[in-house]
């Protein structure tokens, strides 16, 4: 067989393998939802009991309603703020915008469970800031354990996601229209609202849809902040349904997941549509259009910097500062002087406990080496889909969407079962490979997007000339495409590393002795309320993320798509 004929076969093999990896957990969950007992139980028979239970459970409806409010609320908070930040940083002469940009993205890189712990220890009812505020003013007028509090925190932490899409759309806009409006006497704000806003509307709508989706799948923030007041969203309802029954009730967990898929899958499709339109729309301006920055003026500078400063204070300084402080004290509260409480005991204990210190090592291994493996995998998938307009290309597109609709917690549980019951996977179950495979699937759409964006930067002419000169597809990839994207791959690796560092939900059911990871350890420590260790682990997680981020910037990672 000629080498050229192998390319379609290679593409089909890769894409079908990926499809199997994605479809297996999803199919298992759907199958489980229609049974009366765990699928491996002999007593299991086809049944709609699980659906009956949730459809008659008032808690489920409450969780559904709360989730909807949360998702919509998050959009309401994040989209305008993210859009505003993008406008200020890309379209105006804001001072210090060069170094503000990476700072604005920080919340995106932190695990949401770490952020949530950070808020608890900073501005929770007994947080450092709350206590200090109370001692000065007598009372602290906020409460983060309420639904509005959770929504606000969720929204603020998702501002970077909006920023990313809107900023990249804004960068592609020519500035002549804005200039015309300025010349005609419109104020900066008028220009932003009447000229810039309509032009980036597709990007705004897209990021709204994306945030809506993320809102429905959110887990860490409601798990930590909603718990004390019994506020449940769908994902935490899945997690807590066990205690209501007194034993794991997989069929109910699965049925709720199916509901979640029914809600999120349409969102994923809408998003895909929008993305296509957004790209087409933004291209109107064409490349190379000269952009002149809008002048903010002295007052404008002050207002703009204050908005950004306040946002940074609330979204980064408070939670990160809270964690740093809490990690170094054991007792605090009214009447306790913090300076007398400083200690390294929390860290000492973390390093003494084999499971926790192993968790740190595993997290680093999984992020650094696992991240590299994942990039290689995404590259192979990316090549299989690269300029692939056939049926397998379409299958790939849909395979990528499925994991987006599944919460990480459930992907982890499904993989736990797959590794337990699929004979050739059994030896991998108690190794880090089981986590790596689940992580690769959870990170699929994000990772593949980075790789695809890199691949698309290779001009088709280069590939075509290689082909014309007689090279087959593989040779073209090997000698033209891969060498050209190599710098992009290093950046992609750093980004995937950060994604794997902050992951926490996937390992909850999957990890075992020897394969612990920091994020999931924090979830399990939460059940015993061991805040000392949680704070120390959160601190280490922030530290690792900072290292990853520095590396990413050094390697020239493309944070923008």
């Amino acid at each position, binding site marked *: 067989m000629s080498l050229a004929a192998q390319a379609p076969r290679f593409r089909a093999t890769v894409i079908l393998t990926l499809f199997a990896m994605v479809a297996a957990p999803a199919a298992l969950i759907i199958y489980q939802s229609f049974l009366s007992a765990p699928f491996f139980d002999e007593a299991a028979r086809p049944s709609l009991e699980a659906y009956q239970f949730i459809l008659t459970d008032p808690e489920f409806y409450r969780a559904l309603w709360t989730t909807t409010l949360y998702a919509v609320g998050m959009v309401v908070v994040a989209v305008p703020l993210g859009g505003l930040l993008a406008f200020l940083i890309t379209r105006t002469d804001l001072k210090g915008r060069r170094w503000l940009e990476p700072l604005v993205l920080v919340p995106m890189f932190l695990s949401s469970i770490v952020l949530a712990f950070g808020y608890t220890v900073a501005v929770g*009812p*007994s947080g450092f800031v709350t206590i200090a505020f109370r001692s000065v003013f007598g009372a602290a007028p906020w409460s983060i354990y309420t639904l509005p509090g959770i929504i606000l925190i969720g929204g603020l932490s998702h501002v970077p996601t909006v920023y990313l899409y809107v900023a990249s759309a804004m960068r592609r806009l020519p500035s002549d229209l804005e200039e015309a409006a300025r010349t005609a006497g419109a104020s900066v704000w008028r220009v932003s609202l009447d000229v810039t806003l309509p032009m980036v509307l597709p990007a705004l709508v897209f990021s709204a849809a994306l945030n809506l989706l993320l809102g429905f799948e959110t887990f860490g923030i409601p798990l930590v902040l909603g*718990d004390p*007041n019994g506020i449940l969203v769908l994902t935490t309802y899945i997690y807590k349904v066990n205690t209501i029954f*007194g*034993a794991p009730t997989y069929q109910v967990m699965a049925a709720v997941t199916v509901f979640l898929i029914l809600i999120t899958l349409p969102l994923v499709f809408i998003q895909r549509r929008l993305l296509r339109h957004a790209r087409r729309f933004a291209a109107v301006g064409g490349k190379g259009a000269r952009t002149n920055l809008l002048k903010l003026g002295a007052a404008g500078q002050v207002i703009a910097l204050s908005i950004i400063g306040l946002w940074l204070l609330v979204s980064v300084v408070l939670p990160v500062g809270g964690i740093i402080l809490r990690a170094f004290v054991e007792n605090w509260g009214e009447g306790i002087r913090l300076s007398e409480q400083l200690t390294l005991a929390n860290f000492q204990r973390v390093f003494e406990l084999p499971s926790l210190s192993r968790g740190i090592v595993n997290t680093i291994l999984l992020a650094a080496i696992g991240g590299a493996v994942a990039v290689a995998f995404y590259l192979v998938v990316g090549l299989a889909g690269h300029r692939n307009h056939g049926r397998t290309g379409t299958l790939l597109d849909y395979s990528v969407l499925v994991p987006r609709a599944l919460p990480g917690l459930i992907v982890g549980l499904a993989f736990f079962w797959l590794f337990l019951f699929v004979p050739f996977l059994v030896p991998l179950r108690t190794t880090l490979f089981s986590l790596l495979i689940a992580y690769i699937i959870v990170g699929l759409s994000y990772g593949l997007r980075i790789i695809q964006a890199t691949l698309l930067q290779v001009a088709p002419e280069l590939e075509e000339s290689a082909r014309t000169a007689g090279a087959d597809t593989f040779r073209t990839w090997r000698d033209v495409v891969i060498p050209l994207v190599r710098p992009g791959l290093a950046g992609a690796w750093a980004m995937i590393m950060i994604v794997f560092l902050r992951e926490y939900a996937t390992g909850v*059911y999957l990890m075992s002795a020897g394969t612990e990871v920091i994020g999931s350890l924090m979830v399990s420590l939460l059940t015993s*309320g061991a805040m000392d*260790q949680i704070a120390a682990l959160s601190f280490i997680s922030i530290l690792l993320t900072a290292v990853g981020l520095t590396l990413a910037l050094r390697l020239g990672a493309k944070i923008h798509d």
Partner: protein
Amino acid sequence: MINRRQFVLASAASAGVLGAGLSARAQELPAGYPADYKAMLEKARSEGAVSIYTSTDDVQGRPIVEAFQKAFPGIRVDYNDLGTNGAYNRIISEAAAKQVGSDVVWTSAMDLQMVLVQKGLAEAYKSPEAARLPGWGNFNDTLYGTTVEPVGILYNKAQLASFKLPKTRAELLAFMRDNKDALKGKLATFDPEKSGTGFLFFSNDAKTMPDTFDLVRAFGATEGKTYGSSGAMREKIVSGEHWLAFNIIASYAIEWAAKNPALGYILTSDHTAAFSRVANISKGAPHPNAARVFLDFLLANSGQSALASVGAPSIRTDVTSGLNLTRLTEMAGGNLKPIPITTALLEATEPKNRADFFRRWKEALRG
């Protein structure tokens, strides 16, 4: 939480006692151990490892693991803190996949472990230490109690300085009713909906004490908050956000109060319930002999001492380090009421009983 020196000492002590007693080189086994124990020990050693599925977190489990490894250097301990539901989930899944990974199951979910026994996933084994346990702490030589952990009150001394502290359940009820407004939002308790332990405490109370839902109602009227763990409540009591938490694991409260002078604890003298961390050997355990040696060690004087040193009081009466059954009974005014390990625990797992309990709980919580 734990004094480091304390547990190093405890581990050393226990290693000394049991190590001398059971090591293969030792000539004599402790009294009551069968003659063929040495042969079993040899087999355990050649198995080389023992895998524990537990809900006892690593901080608390560490001393017993260390003590065991000192006593039996040839047997590695794979310690898996999975939480109660996590452990149960993994055990039934692995049993179905015929890949049993646990040798010893050791959790605070007395009810779930009784379900495992009922499902035939536990192996009977008559421990030579069984005779040292109270009758209620041994179910058919299969499921053993390893601790006796009272249920009680933790409070912030400064915040409650001007109040008369309740010493009995009746006084606790009166305390909540009389100070309804002053205590608004200041009380905390375990949440049976979030925590299996919380459910065990309150469902056991509901079964044994007629005033249970009056107590919950009075608590609800103060707009108290519920939590999923004792640790979470400690955090809030230390910081002053809450003043008093009841129905929490009091053996922890005793430890915390010893360490932090701002905290106090109460065991109600008319009735103090207690639960037990229970242990069984898994059916089809990959290391059956090592499993037996570990279970024996959990129940032996030395293992019990290691546990008691970290706030998990001994179920035996002859353990002198930390608290034991006798001492706790005195502290509870003679009215310590441990939850017996019997099939009655299964009632709590019946969906109908649970639904009934939660209905009454929610109704009472509205105040």
